[in-house]
């Protein structure tokens, strides 16, 4: 199948939706692709049906009214030439011709290996939150959450609201940095409110700073966790552990397209345009910055794509959210102890069962791939690559298409239609 549009947007989270709204409202033919069945991205997952988040509801209705088209279950598998994306949609394949492209591929959780992290019952922080939002019953189940930053509180709030017994929220950052960060929120009323609501929902839940997981234990699935809490070890019997340390941007498609990446973020100009002409990047791709940064950068990209002027207020908001993102990055940086949790037997790459000991003689990610098969499996290093970057300081490897397994047929572009046939408008 074939599609053509003025602007294609990859990712229907807040950044993609904001870009779509601005561009479609200005009259562009906009096509939004997302792997999920509904728009909203990970952060507004389920809001398209349930709609409890007011900000999400506002943007989702605006998107629905904008005239932008949405293709669910669509995954980009190749970018064979400028202006063309090959897309896999369930059992069929699609070629999309576009004038401009906005990358809004969001972020995933940063996992660091610790003994037992591959046991059933151990998930990411947001991963566990998503499962619960999607219907996993957590009522009466004992949960420990370990990680960093605002997502930890957001996940705790969801689990708590669904009847989960949250035994401990373990924030890895030291108290000083944690509260320093919390105080910074005062300068940003929007953030403060969000924080306050979250906290209100979590009355009575134990929180600790300078706390992290040492080991997950269990015969066939998780039975308990060993934690380091303010310098002391503690063992907690539990059913679920959500453990992840902040977010890392999903840079694969940006890298595949040849966009310049610096310091773990896509380099863009004030129009959110990358170094590759007519390709923009928004949201977490610019460095983890949350919903506000995604919305504002999305609006800026949508306006740029439609060649519309940028309102002063939006410019100002942009500078504000960038300052917040800077503070978040500082706060979320995993502490050194987290790099030493894994033992030689701990798996680093769970697709290919690569233990840490297999990397003994490797000095970079390329050697780890070639000699030990790290990241050679079905996730193509999405999990272990980011972990290896954090553990060893190794630079990311180049991306090879299709990024995630795709049908071979999807990599073969459909034949161009005969020149006499014109697309109906």
């Amino acid at each position, binding site marked *: 199948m074939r599609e053509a549009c003025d602007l294609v947007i990859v990712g229907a989270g807040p950044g993609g939706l904001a870009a779509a709204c601005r561009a479609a409202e200005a009259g562009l033919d906009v096509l939004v692709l997302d792997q999920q069945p509904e728009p909203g991205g990970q952060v507004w997952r389920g809001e398209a049906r349930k709609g409890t988040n007011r900000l999400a509801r506002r943007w989702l209705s605006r998107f629905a009214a904008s005239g932008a088209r949405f293709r669910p279950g669509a995954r980009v598998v190749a970018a064979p030439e400028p202006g063309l994306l090959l897309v896999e949609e369930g059992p069929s394949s699609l070629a999309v011709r576009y004038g401009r492209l906005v990358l809004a591929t969001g972020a995933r959780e940063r996992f660091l290996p610790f003994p037992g992290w591959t046991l059933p019952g151990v998930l990411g922080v947001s991963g566990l939150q998503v499962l619960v939002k999607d219907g996993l019953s957590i009522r009466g189940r004992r949960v420990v959450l370990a990680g960093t930053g605002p997502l930890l509180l957001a996940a705790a709030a969801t689990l708590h609201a669904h009847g989960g017994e949250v035994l401990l929220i373990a924030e890895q950052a030291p108290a000083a940095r944690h509260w320093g960060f919390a105080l910074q929120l005062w300068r940003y009323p929007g953030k403060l409110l969000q924080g306050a609501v979250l906290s209100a929902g979590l009355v009575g839940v134990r929180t600790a700073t300078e706390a992290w997981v040492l080991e997950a234990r269990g015969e066939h699935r998780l039975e308990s966790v060993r934690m380091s809490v303010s310098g002391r070890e503690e063992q907690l019997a539990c059913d679920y552990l959500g453990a992840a340390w902040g977010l890392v941007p999903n840079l694969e498609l940006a890298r595949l397209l040849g966009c310049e990446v610096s310091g773990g973020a896509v380099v863009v100009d004030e129009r959110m345009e990358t170094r590759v002409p007519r390709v923009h990047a928004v949201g977490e791709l610019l460095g983890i910055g949350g919903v506000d940064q995604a919305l504002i950068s999305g609006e800026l990209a949508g306006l740029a794509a439609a060649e519309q002027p940028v309102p002063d207020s939006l410019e100002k908001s942009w500078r504000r959210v960038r300052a917040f993102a800077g503070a978040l990055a500082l706060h979320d940086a995993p502490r050194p102890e987290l790099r030493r949790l894994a033992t030689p037997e701990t798996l680093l790459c769970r697709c290919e069962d690569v233990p840490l000991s297999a990397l003994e003689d490797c000095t970079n990610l390329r050697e780890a791939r070639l000699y030990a098969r790290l990241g050679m499996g079905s996730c193509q290093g999405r999990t272990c690559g980011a972990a290896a970057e954090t553990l060893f300081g190794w630079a990311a490897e180049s991306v090879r298409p299709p990024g995630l397994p*795709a049908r071979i047929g999807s990599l073969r572009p459909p034949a161009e239609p005969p020149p006499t046939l014109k697309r109906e408008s």
Partner: protein
Amino acid sequence: MNTFDCVIVGGGIVGAALADVLSAEGLSIALVEACSIGSGTTACGMGHLVAMDDNAAELALTAWSVALWRELRDELPLAVEYDACGTLWLATDSEERAAIDAKVASYRGVGVRAEVLDAAALREAEPALSPGLVGALRVPDDAVLYPPRAALHFARRARDRGARLMPGCPVHALRPGSVVLENGEALAAGHIVLAAGVASPRLCPELPISPRKGHLLITHRGAPVVHHQLVELGYLKSAHGSGGASVAFNAQPRVTGQLLLGSSRQPGADGSHVEPAILERMLKRAADFLPGLDGLRALRVWTGLRPATPDGLPLLGPHPEKPWLWLACGHEGLGITTATGSARLVADQLLGRSSAIDSRPYAPARFLASMTPLSEAHHA
């Protein structure tokens, strides 16, 4: 200055195999590699160990090399993934079918086992193949392996005998008696061997080696099983045709349960980007032989640059005008197969010994000696 009996420039499979052989002879060795051991063209190829009979010299070197690999098989670590799956050369029509008998004779002539499969036997051996195929040539002693780990195995064995491995050391220049690194360090060498594949002409511009790009695709685990390395008989035409870009069907079962698919050849093509038009042709060709291929899941697509010489044979031996320099490069698509034989041939010459096969067809002098009338003919 550090002094070695021999400095090998290039830590691909050929340089690593040579370090292994020479260190076993008691020579002090430095193996100098710009990036990581086995990470260049070695890491990009299919890893076939295949006897090829395009001409007598090619057959002699490949058949001997495959036999040398077989001798090594029991000492190769599991991670090298040596798998004696054999090769099936597939005939699509009666003309190709008729060519098989001559090939059987030429293989047997150098002691390589070979047998004919008719259409029914082929169907039984490889049910996943297209039913339209008319027969195949089976070469049961061919094998496949995972080249980066094979290179690493050779290099580490050399290291254990005292060789110095120097990955991450790009070479600035080759001088009589010394190899000058980009960091300014100079390594004194009784002998210097240039085994830098496609990068060789950068250090020795007169070498007639040019890149010939290829594309490969590997599937997810759990791909439908094939049991042999599968190659279309038309591969030889494709491999040694001197014209434009060509594709040919080549598929390998990997011990990981994955299927590795090739192949394409683009003379002179540089740059490592995946070219969709070539990939499309390659996959379409592959689907002709393996129906249902389009439904398999691709895990990765990548490219590599083969170091091609004008006559398709490697340069193995002394540089005719630089007596201090030895060459072990220009293997095009047969560097993995012939690494074992190439290492022996160069080592034998360097040590003044005779070899199991005649080394003259691979002598660099066929191109480089300006007074040799042959060279003109080869460049024509």
